[in-house]
């Protein structure tokens, strides 16, 4: 009755202690056809923390996430995840290493139900061969059921039971965001990247989402890196904050320190909010 999300499969390869560096980003630069999106950025994400990446529009926040999960390949700099330096790799490799994410503009699989969307998050953990899939009996069905149970735990955790079988396309925005979080959680990530999880939400939805993010962090010990626009939210949620502006890092530290930083104040005053 009170099953928890099974973390066994992850902890087997996750031998980093809480508080140690999980992801190290060193001197990353990224440009598109001469336009610099990110310039010489370094920071780290430590195991078990909620790390926020903030900055005004166009500061390179989303590009940074895209670099972390292998969607963009930086021209310079290195990234190491769980102590291993990585070379160019495809996003699915990052996913299989335990990096999972949500998107700024909800990127759900619009033709599928909530349940299937979250099941989709389990795809890396499902392996039964094509042969068994043909029959959808025996091992394939057992596997499906086993993962369904995990998905149901997540559904319960995020309180989306009532939309379980609804197509996601028709859901209100706030719920879509929640389903997306559920999908990312279904992958049992070591590092969870959230790209503006609270964008476009009303106050109540924001409070719910903050609660879920904290609970994910506390209950499952998932390390979270999140991008957010809303300074207030970040200051409440994050353990440490890195601030970007025009593709450069201008501050890094605890929320209070960052908030007092003159560079940060200038950057934020410089743009209309």
């Amino acid at each position, binding site marked *: 009755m009170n099953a928890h999300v099974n973390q066994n499969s992850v902890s087997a390869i996750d031998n980093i202690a809480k508080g140690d560096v999980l992801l190290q980003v060193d001197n990353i630069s990224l440009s598109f*056809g001469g336009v610099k999106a990110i310039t010489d950025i370094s920071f780290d994400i430590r195991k078990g923390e909620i790390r926020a990446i903030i900055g005004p529009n166009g500061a390179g926040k989303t590009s940074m996430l895209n670099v972390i999960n292998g*969607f963009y390949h930086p021209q310079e700099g290195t990234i190491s995840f769980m102590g291993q330096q990585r070379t160019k790799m495809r996003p699915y490799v990052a996913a299989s290493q335990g990096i999972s994410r949500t998107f700024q503009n909800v990127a759900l699989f619009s033709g599928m139900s909530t349940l299937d969307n979250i099941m989709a998050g389990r795809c890396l953990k499902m392996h039964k061969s094509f042969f068994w899939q043909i029959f959808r009996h025996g091992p394939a069905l057992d596997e499906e059921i086993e993962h369904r149970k995990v998905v149901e735990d997540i559904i319960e955790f995020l309180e989306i039971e009532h939309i379980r079988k609804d197509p996601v396309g028709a859901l209100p925005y706030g719920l879509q965001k929640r389903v997306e979080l559920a999908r990312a959680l279904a992958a049992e990530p070591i590092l969870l990247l959230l790209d503006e999880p609270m964008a476009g939400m009303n106050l109540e939805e924001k409070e719910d989402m903050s609660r879920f993010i904290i609970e994910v962090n506390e209950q499952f010990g998932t390390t979270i890196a999140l991008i957010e626009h809303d300074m207030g939210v970040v200051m409440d949620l994050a353990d440490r904050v890195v601030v970007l502006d025009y593709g450069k890092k201008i501050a890094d530290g605890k929320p209070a320190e960052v908030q007092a930083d003159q560079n940060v104040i200038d950057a934020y005053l410089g743009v209309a909010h």
Partner: protein
Amino acid sequence: MELLYNIFIDPFVQMGAMPDFLLQVLWEGFVSGILYALLALGFVLIFKASGVFNFAQGIMVVFSALSLVSLYAAGVPAYIALALAILIMAALAVTIERVVLRHLVNQDDIILFMATIGLSYFLIGFGELIFGGEPKAMITEELGLPTGSTTFDIFDGILILQHIDIAAAVIAAILVAVLAIFFSKTRIGRGLRAVADDHQAALSVGISLNQIWAIVWFASGIVALATGIMWGAKSDVSFALQIVALKALPVLILGGFTSVPGAIVGGLIIGFGEKLFEVYWGGLLGGGVEGWFAYVIALIFLLFRPQGLFGEKIIERV
């Protein structure tokens, strides 16, 4: 060894041995390249302005040419028939906009594409019902187009140039020039460009999307008519052309979907490539390679440069 020789050496030996023949082949390639370019031009016009990949461009070529020929056969003087054919294309453009496109605004590209396939089927049935399915001869002379040929002595051999082919090249050049002027100098033309860039922006400067769609379809109808006349003059006007017209696709792949110069360069590449390959390498494969060569070229090309010849590198965003 022999195979390698046949593939890599022998064709070039032959080219060197008979340069006049090579020239002749290149000319033929040039001419079909022009026609491909014209076909592609019709696609580009519509795609540029509306983002619709118009699968029915081929049938529009056939339909316009058949209208012209049938009107003449019904006793209408050639030039009046030409004018009427243009009017028919205008009517067709307006009808398509009213009946089809208007209802599909904001749909996925793929839906619009399918709709043009449906349109193409409809026009095939409709065309065959009105004009009959059998091939017809183009009224080349009656339209005042040259028909003869000139023979040049060159490299100890001869080069035969059909006058109609020369005319085709000239007309294509004129069309392209006119279109270029139309796009850059006229208000409507600039409007079209605005639409292509940004629908909202276009609306804000007071251009009706519906009008624009009708206009581009009409413009591409005229291009289709020109293509139909030229093509008809070389062979007959028949519905089989419709399948040939699909070759505009690989042309577009090479040239890019929105570029007029790209369409021309792409057309020429395909035209030259196809003829040379057919003549010098086709024999090795048993001939008839024209049917697929263009596609395979495009396919190979795509693998190395998915954004096309003139397209910019695509940056995917999340």
